[in-house]
């Protein structure tokens, strides 16, 4: 008898790049990944949604600014409003900020250069569905690859985020993009939507140099299985 696997949707926009990597990583960690095209008006029955990295709609105007209007994103907004778990990675983080599902905005890197390297992260919160497998203050190594990952929030918003403990990950001694206060990942006030610039899906196999990304995706899968279980597969 095969255990039912938690289902996680991975959105695919024109210009998405890491959708297959995200699906592969989720599957390798025990989930069933369902790719969802941006034109879909409804999400399949899933316990969580991942918005992958890439350059949705060419990233014209501002990164994520156009993707937020896609039919699938309206479904994601409803899913999130109902308490569904949503994780935005890189371009996915940018889309969530532009959509108003997460606070702040991602701006061009201070250096104006594209960065692509492993960075150390510090876990600031472990009581989220995304970081429950990490220890307090644990250092993770996860790669970044982006040109516009400089998180910005004004002083009032930063104070709000600190007060509500919405900053989940910070760059730990190597800030690759000039993000204010070294912010690498944030959650919404309810804690069910998270965005981060580093790519956990690229750090799930020792051959890639780190498996720390599996802590984040694994936690998401575990939390999503509490919310939804896929029907047992035909194989028994």
């Amino acid at each position: 008898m095969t255990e039912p696997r938690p289902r996680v949707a991975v959105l695919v926009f024109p210009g998405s790049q890491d959708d297959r990597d995200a699906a592969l990583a989720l599957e390798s960690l025990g989930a069933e990944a369902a790719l969802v095209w941006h034109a879909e008006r409804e999400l399949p029955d899933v316990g969580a949604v991942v918005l992958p990295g890439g350059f949705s709609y060419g990233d014209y105007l501002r990164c994520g600014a156009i993707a937020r209007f896609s039919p699938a994103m309206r479904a994601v907004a409803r899913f999130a409003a109902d308490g569904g778990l949503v994780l935005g990675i890189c371009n996915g983080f940018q889309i969530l900020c532009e959509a108003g599902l997460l606070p702040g905005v991602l701006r061009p890197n201070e250096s104006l250069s594209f960065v692509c390297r492993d960075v150390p992260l510090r876990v600031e919160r472990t009581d989220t569905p995304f970081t429950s497998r990490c220890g307090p203050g644990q250092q993770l190594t996860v790669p970044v690859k982006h040109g516009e990952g400089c998180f910005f929030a004004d002083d009032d918003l930063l104070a709000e985020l600190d007060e509500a403990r919405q900053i989940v990950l910070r760059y730990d001694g190597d800030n690759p993009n000039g993000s204010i206060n070294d912010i690498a990942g944030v959650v919404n006030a309810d804690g069910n939507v998270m965005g981060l610039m580093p790519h956990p899906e690229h750090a799930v196999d020792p051959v890639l140099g780190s498996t720390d990304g599996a802590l984040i995706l694994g936690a998401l899968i575990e939390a999503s299985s509490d919310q939804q279980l896929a029907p047992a597969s035909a194989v028994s």
Partner: protein
Amino acid sequence: MKATILVRPKPGILDPQGKAVEDGLRHLGFAVDGARVGRLVDLEVEATDPDTARAELERMCADLLANPLIESYEIELEEGS
């Protein structure tokens, strides 16, 4: 009606693109300071009167053309067009 929308980085917001342009100009020997790079959108809006057009343009800026966290905007409307 023809309209032009100017989107600027808000004062105080670090503008790395403006900084790079400023550095480039200085390398060319120009004495410049405070370069900021924004965005210009030309468009034609269908509207019966300028007030309606202006209201539409305001919504376009708020909903898509500018991100109020980091950008300000100005709308110019060619009312005779």
